[in-house]
């Protein structure tokens, strides 16, 4: 009994080490006073200060966040409605076909999605006679495009789990279909919507390949900016930036987990 417990702790420890060692090294070196990635000289905030003086890096960060927020919101709304529609399809065959089709983009390699989107944008742009077919909006469409399947995938099961009698009861008791959706169904599927939204947000934030192909002039995201630093070495200010992003996402995850737990408790209390 005890032995297996020790063993399982070791396994868990090793797994965590494997998962977090790279990030731990990065965080440690973001506080290094020197440029070296081998020797730790002194503890300092030099690279953090450096980062906040680099307007181009901050602009890239702002662009990334704006793009991620806007694309997440649009794709969450679209995906939720799509899931709503799919869950109400009568024919089982039709429903599973639609599901498979929406899953294809997820399986598609990013590079194919990226190239095909770029080709389409250039094609449409030339047809419309635009001087530059790629812009912020093409990148936005691309990001919505690749996040949509994830939203559908996380919202649809919530619709299926939901007791079908509930919206029916709401309609019986005088709700309009719209009211029934917002008052009864939406609160039920909310955890799925939030999970999907969070996933879309992080995916949009760190996407490189698709953004690379669909990027227009004057709107560069953070991953593209970091990649272009390879003419010289990537400076440690990027470690500082990565550290900050890591902690922001960690806090987001913690908050979302805590609110999820609260929801669970309330439910139990109500049911009792």
């Amino acid at each position, binding site marked *: 009994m005890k032995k297996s417990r020790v063993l399982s702790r070791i396994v868990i420890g090793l797994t965590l080490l494997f998962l977090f060692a790279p990030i731990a090294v990065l965080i440690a070196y973001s506080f290094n006073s*020197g*440029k070296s990635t081998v020797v730790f000289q002194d503890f300092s905030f030099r690279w953090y200060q450096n980062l906040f003086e*680099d*307007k*181009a890096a901050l602009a890239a960060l702002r662009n990334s966040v*704006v793009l991620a927020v806007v694309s997440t919101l649009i794709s969450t709304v679209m995906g939720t409605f799509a899931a709503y529609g799919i869950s109400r399809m009568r024919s089982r065959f039709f429903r599973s076909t639609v599901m498979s089709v929406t899953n294809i983009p997820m399986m598609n390699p990013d590079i194919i999605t990226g190239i095909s989107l*770029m080709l389409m944008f*250039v094609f449409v742009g030339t047809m419309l006679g635009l001087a530059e077919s790629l812009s912020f909006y093409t990148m936005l469409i691309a990001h919505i495009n690749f996040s949509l399947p994830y939203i559908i995938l996380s919202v649809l099961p919530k619709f299926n789990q939901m007791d079908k009698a509930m919206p029916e009861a709401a309609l019986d008791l005088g709700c309009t279909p719209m009211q029934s959706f917002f008052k009864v169904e939406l609160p039920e599927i909310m955890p799925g919507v939030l999970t999907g939204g969070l996933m879309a947000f992080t995916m949009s934030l760190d996407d490189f390949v698709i953004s690379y192909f669909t990027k*227009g002039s004057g709107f560069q995201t953070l991953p593209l900016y970091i*990649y272009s630093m390879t003419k010289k070495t990537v400076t440690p200010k990027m470690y500082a930036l990565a550290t900050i992003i890591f902690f922001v996402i960690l806090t987001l995850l913690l908050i979302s987990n805590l609110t999820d737990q609260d929801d669970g408790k309330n439910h139990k209390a109500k049911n009792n």
Partner: protein
Amino acid sequence: MKKIFAIIPALALAVVLLLSCAGCGGKTLTLNVYNWGEYISDGSEDSLNTVKAFEKWYQEEYGQKVRVNYDTFSSNEDLYAKLSSGAVSYDVIFPSDYMIARMIDENMLLPLDYGNIPNFEYITEDFRNLYYDPQNQFTVPYTYGVVGVIYNAKVVDESDASGWDLLWNEKYSGDILQFNNPRDAFGTAMYKLGIDVNTTDKADWDAAQAELLRQRPLLKGMVMDEIYNMMASGEAAIGTYYAGDYFTMLDMVDEDNDTVDLHFYYPEPTNYYVDAMCIPSCCKNKELAEIFINYMLSEEPAVANAEFTYYASPNSVVLNSQQYAEDMGEDFMEIIYPPMDSFRNNYQAYAYQNLDAETLAYINELWEKVKIN
């Protein structure tokens, strides 16, 4: 829950409004600049942010707001692919020599109106009319560089440190780094053998390959950017890179580490490159782009950029700047600006030029064999 649902769209709307309002403060001009990453002074460590300085200067000078969208690329091929897709619009770009030659061939660059770029007079005679732009109609040089050998004096004897032979010296087997791309790697062997690096004679390329195969067992590795860390940490003792990069490495060496003492010298002959500012054919505001190029040549931004990138400047204002020489120190000036009879002659004779497709394919074939050996 309902509240969250009301707050989120409101926030989104605010973000979108903010974003769309970036250009709505009266008539704001925009200038799209596409440059290498880390290739312009960005305001860190108390340096001058040259892009912001341009925006400010332009408004004072012309009374109109200008917004510079500054994007970065990682290789010439990257830049070429983006521009040739025809889907983007940039006003100023910074390609390297061989790519400029190709872009001129394919009508991707616009001839400049040098009347709008009076500061072009600061460009030293040596850097005008080079092979990639013989009439100097399309380009304003931004930086140049010379390849040299970097070695760790704690490992390498001073007496061995000269010429390309050091990279083939069996005494330092396991300490030598070679470039991990065919053109640069073959270049080192061809300079050593005295072969023209732009030859189309297959026998010459075969000879260079034999030399590389002879060197292969002595190598620690074939690297590109890893060279910075490997040299700075003492993991390898001999490598070749541009002079400016040597100073980046020096910055990375730990002060307390007494096993690393990096030195630098130029072998003869060696490789040269020039990066220049150009205006691509997709440019929307050519005059503004020319004003930008002209501004980058003026003293304050030119000195700031040269100090930031560590690469050599073809701009006489920078060369004559007291402040530049003082900031960078004597060692730096001696190494970055080596005495040369004529940059032009060296450059025209030894810089890489665009090769025809057949030769390139042949080199790649030879290179594969070097790699697997």
